[in-house]
């Protein structure tokens, strides 16, 4: 895939996908002139197979499979460095968000699973508790990711320092949070939201 020849035509360039990313991110990909400044300052560049500028380039050519096939988008730390410095105000951080959403909705065509898992647990946590419950987040992540021993040494120390709460506090708005989730899901089903 990575090195396969790119056949360009109006059919092979998925303009619809690009428009969706542009709408979600509120940022045009055509404005990018491939200067590479985004990639130059990206702290996560070395973890990515497609540097940020190439992600935009692939979008310009409507090559969404190539973008989503890699794990690059999941390595973006949302640090906003690229968006801040881009001479054309291409909001790459927002584009990354949009791409992750597309990948997420497509039930994860991306290779990266750990970040997705952490995100999912985090969001589940919100849904269940209204707030983050770090203890549970860490515990479940460790179980689900199969990394039982990970951070084993850190946990107890944090508990003694009072940093990991064994129990979560009750939040009166949990119900309301759940309803927000439900309404959004409903809107999406009806096609009222992306």
């Amino acid at each position: 895939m990575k090195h396969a020849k790119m056949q360009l035509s109006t059919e092979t360039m998925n303009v619809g996908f690009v428009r969706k990313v542009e709408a979600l991110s509120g940022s045009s990909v055509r404005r990018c002139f491939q200067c590479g400044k985004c990639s130059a300052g990206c702290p996560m560049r070395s973890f990515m197979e497609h540097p940020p500028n190439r992600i935009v380039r692939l979008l310009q050519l409507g090559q969404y499979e190539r973008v989503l096939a890699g794990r690059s988008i999941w390595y973006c730390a949302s640090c906003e460095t690229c968006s801040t410095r881009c001479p054309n105000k291409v909001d790459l951080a927002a584009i990354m968000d949009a791409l992750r959403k597309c990948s997420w909705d497509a039930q994860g065509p991306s290779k990266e699973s750990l970040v997705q898992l952490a995100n999912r647990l985090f969001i589940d946590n919100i849904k269940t508790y209204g707030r983050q419950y770090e203890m549970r987040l860490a515990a479940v992540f460790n179980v689900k990711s199969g990394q039982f021993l990970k951070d084993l040494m850190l946990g107890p120390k944090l508990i003694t320092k009072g940093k990991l709460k064994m129990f979560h506090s009750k939040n009166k708005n949990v119900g309301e949070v759940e309803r927000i989730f439900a309404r959004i899901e409903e809107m999406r089903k009806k096609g009222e939201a992306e």
Partner: protein
Amino acid sequence: MSRIGVFVCHCGENISRTVDVEKVAAAAARLSGVAYATDYKYMCSDPGQGLLKKAVAEHRLDGIVVAACSPRMHEKTFRNAAKSAGLNPFLCEMANIREHCSWVHEDREEATEKAISIVTMLVERVKKNRKLVPITVPITKRSLVIGGGIAGIQAALDIADAGHEVVLVEREPSIGGHMAQLSETFPTLDCSQCIMTPKMVDVANHPNIRLYTYSEIENVEGYIGNFQVTVRKKARSVDMDKCTGCGVCTAKCPQKKIPNSFDRDLGMRPAIYVPFPQAVPNTPVIDRANCTYFKTGKCGVCQKVCGPGAVDYEQQDELVVEPVGAIVVATGFELYDIGPKPAGSPYEGYGEFGYGTIPDVIDGLTFERLASASGPTGGKIVRPSDGKEPKQVVFIQCVGSRAREKGISYCSKICCMYTAKHTMLYHHKVHDGQAYVFFMDARTPGKNYDEFWRRSIEEEEAVYIRGMVSRLYQKGDKVVVMGSDVLVGVQVEIEADLVVLATAVQARTGADSLAQKLGISYDKYNFYSEAHAKLKPVECATAGIYLAGACQGPKDIPDTVSQASAAAAKVMTLFAKAELEREPIVAKVNERNCVACFYCKKVCPYGAVEEKEIRDRNGNLIRVVAYVNPGVCGGCGTCQATCPSKSVELDGYTDEQVIAMIDAL
């Protein structure tokens, strides 16, 4: 015995701080031939100059040395002072004891010694100086413009508007050049014809412009202010005075299938034709090579149908001599040929693009004709092979240009912009079409140019792909483009309906032979050379000849028009004077010694050396010698250093003067 005056300046303290000026003056006074020597605080001040003038009168001085600053600073000042004192200005010299002495040495003794030696050298030089008189040359206040593209048109109109006569010579049957072929023009997208034709009509109607179309330069003689130009008016076979431009002949001509080169062979024309409807003049010309009458002696239809009887099969080429004082060269450019490599061409050609054999691979100018509302398709973009509307169009930039090993190293400068324009024109006309551009850089350094290019991408949705194309080949009715996107790092393949090559801008074929007639220089690509890339960008090294437009190098219309107006301004500057006056630092030939080897002629960068025939009273040729035209000589002295028989001498820098200085060491 000479009577030289020496004036040593203190320059406030600038000189006197390190140089003992009194001692210098005293030493000068002791030199043989020095009649008067003094020192003064500020020689360039009014009293300083007064002192000099007074001394000239009182001491009957016949030479002056001012020991002061650099001659680059005040030589004019003191020569003028000498002149007003009644002395020939060229008998006044400056000894530079400031920039070359007091400011660069600290040791007073050494500096004083050096100052004395500098003054001595100049005193010895002045003794050998001769009186020189500024040269004046008369000026014929008419000018010639060669080439009737936008450059020639603009220059001609400007000069004519200034009240001077202009002779405009155009090779083709109509003026207009390339701009007449364009559809719409970057960066504003105005219609080329709309802004061009009014100017063409102005040329035709201007009382000060004499227009020769279908004409070429046969010969050029003379020099700045005084050229004699012979123009060959090619036989048009139509009497310009009688023809009313009714067009009956062209309509009736049975020969209708001749490819129209104005339309890049996309359309056809008859044998008697005007190249395009808005042509100026609107007088047809018979293409004799394709006319039945000229080939077989039969037909003669045009003559029969022509009411005013303008068709004249017997017409001959005509030579006219035009005296002019200045010449503007505006012969424009040609596009790199995508066809097979012509024999003997220094260019390699593009076999990988099919050498012009794939019908749907065209060049930019052909695309212009397709997009032009007055073009052969009425502005409908179709492909040459089957007339279908192309939905996938690939543009390839830098074809020929920037390909050192294929023959051309330079960037053609306009193709990035016109390709961007093409993608826009295409998208405006074919909404569901997709334009792709293979490019290496986007070179758009003009006012509003980069914005224009970005618009083609951001608004007209052209897909730009950074990378050159490896190969094109025909596959069914498609042209397969094998490229690569170096940003993504993968190969790219596009099955195109039409491929447009942005081919290099080249000098005109035959540009070199015109240059030789004019005696101007050209570079290895046959573009004409300006005298100085930055400071004399419109002047040729040859005085009185100026450059405008793409004949000097690739240029777009704004640059072309700017340069044309600049060239016109140069011509007007020349014509503003009654006579040409120049410094008399020019070479002279001693005809008695000259052995006619003409080494001088070979080395002279200005082409100032001519061959002069010496005849006896009966007109018999005795011998040939060199002659330096003082109107042309730039005064470099190269001829003198080269002449093996010491027969040519540069005034102001004679051997005598130089040797005198050396001997005074």
